[in-house]
């Protein structure tokens, strides 16, 4: 089943064209990567998929909802079904880790406090944080912890779909590999479909099933990593060239 369908999407900022007719499809259970040189609009596309940004033309369908003419209520339902991890975590700085994770549960469900605490503890454990960290504020956490905390928050409502914006950037290599392993484990355990933007070559090879490479306003390649070098693109040559020797 296709969870995300991007058809002929165009994005224009002022008089600068960012996307000129993008097409891609994300199927259920995939870990899907958006790659490309910096400034090519990967993050912009991700933001368009999660309703943070309008696009100028074309159509994006996420979990069966067409985003270009989505209603307020539908948008709200859609938002309950995905989780988003931002590049720097974007934890609410006025709340502790526990409160950050619990927020959606408190707002959207009628679970008892005890139940919520249990779920939160489970999610904290799931992403590899310690129970003692629960009462820390974001300012008291390290970069890696913030990412894990952001992931725990994104997973709070058990989403089907997870968006990750540069999940390993700014992490040291060991933490980055741990994070990759975590993502793979979560996909297996929770049956997630994951869409991520990444620059980390190791992480790309370790985790991704399928990639879309955006170059020069268009999709230069979409498919598995094995055949990526078959596509003609300067970016692909320089980015994947050496490692495939």
């Amino acid at each position, binding site marked *: 089943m296709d969870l995300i369908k991007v058809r002929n999407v165009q994005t224009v900022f002022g008089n600068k064209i960012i996307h000129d007719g993008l097409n891609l499809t994300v199927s259920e259970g995939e870990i899907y990567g958006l790659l490309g040189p910096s400034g090519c609009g990967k993050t912009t596309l991700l933001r368009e998929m999660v309703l943070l940004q309008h696009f100028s033309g074309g159509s994006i369908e996420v979990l069966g909802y067409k985003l270009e003419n989505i209603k307020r209520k539908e948008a709200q339902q859609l938002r309950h079904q995905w989780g988003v991890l931002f590049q720097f975590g974007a934890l*609410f700085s006025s709340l502790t880790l526990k409160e950050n994770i619990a*927020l*959606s549960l408190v*707002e959207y469900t009628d679970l008892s406090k005890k139940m919520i605490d249990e779920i939160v503890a489970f999610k904290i454990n799931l992403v590899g944080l310690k129970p003692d960290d629960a009462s820390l504020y974001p300012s008291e956490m390290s970069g890696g912890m913030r990412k894990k905390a952001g992931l725990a928050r994104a997973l709070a409502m058990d989403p089907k779909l997870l968006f990750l914006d540069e999940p390993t950037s700014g992490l040291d290599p060991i933490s980055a590999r741990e994070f990759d392993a975590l993502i793979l484990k979560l996909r297996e355990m929770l049956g997630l479909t994951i869409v991520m933007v990444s620059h980390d070559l190791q992480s790309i090879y370790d985790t991704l099933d399928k990639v879309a490479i955006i170059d020069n306003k268009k999709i230069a390649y979409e498919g598995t990593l094995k055949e990526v070098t078959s596509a003609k693109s300067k970016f692909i040559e320089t980015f994947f060239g050496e490692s495939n020797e």
Partner: protein
Amino acid sequence: MSEKLLITLQDDQLLVKFSQELTLTTITSAQTKIEKYKTKIFDKVVLDGTNISYLDSAGALFLYDLQQYFKNHNISVSLLLQESKQKQTFAFVEENCRNAKVPFLEKKSSFLEEIGKLFYSNYRGFLSFLYFFGQLIVTHLDAFVSLRRLRFKEIAFEINESALKALGIIALTSFLIGVVVAYQSAYQLKMYGANIYIVDMLGLSILRELSPLITAIIIAGRSGSAYAAQIGAMKITQEIDAMETMGFDPFAFLVLPRIIALIVMMPILIFVSDIMAMLGGMIIAHTDLNISMQLFLDRFNEVIAAKHFFVGIVKGPFFAFLIASIGIYRGLMVKDDTQSIGFNTTKSVVESIFAVIICDAVFSIAFTNLGI
């Protein structure tokens, strides 16, 4: 060697002999010297760099530019360099210049263009404020349709944070304003022996105008700016984006509680300010004009109608709405850089005080025409 640059003009040949270093620090003096000779007539130039001890990329660029200049004026140029390393430097610079010789075009814009741009950006700013306003009203309506959606916990938090914690400073400032106004007028009134009229003066000016304005200005400077900075910082750390993707409407979570908190608390703050300012005036009346507290209060009761008090209080919610919405709007306008937090915080204070004063003027005219 004292002379770094030797220039000799023989017949139709100009010989420029460089020596020592030709680097960032020395090219300017060389340039001024050569500049003088550029007006003279010659058709052959020799740039002799054989004695250069060190050539950096700026020096090489300088040589390259000279070479190009003479070439463009149909003067044959020959450049002599000795060391291979310097030749390499020059070749490197030459190659890069040839590949990327796109002069930085300083975009000159005409006066009209500037005005047009300014007008357009202001127009866009105005539209975005209207957009903000529209969204605010929709959320307001939404919230009041079902009161359950109002976030009472956040409102209570904001009431404490932006109003109750401001009580001290408002009380102190108002007290001092009362003292100052009374002190100034006491001197004038004493000359006419019209001591008792201090009560009328203070009562009218403080209750109707001074207290609401002082309170509004303090709240704008204290809480309005805090709103802009808090929300601006949340925007930079993507917290607002995160809220949106989680389905939490920032308007319901961040905007409404702050606006409602201020609207509820502003009249109370003005009331406190009234009390403190009158107290200050009363003390001065007692010490300076020998009007006892009892006499002051009796006179106050007699001449100051309750409507004057209500005129001041009624302004409160309007001022509060302006301050809170401008502060929040400015916070949401913050872009992805730290500079814009400062810019927008400043703007929020300036604009909200300005808006409050305009609003006050409108009220003044309206109340006067209504005979209140």
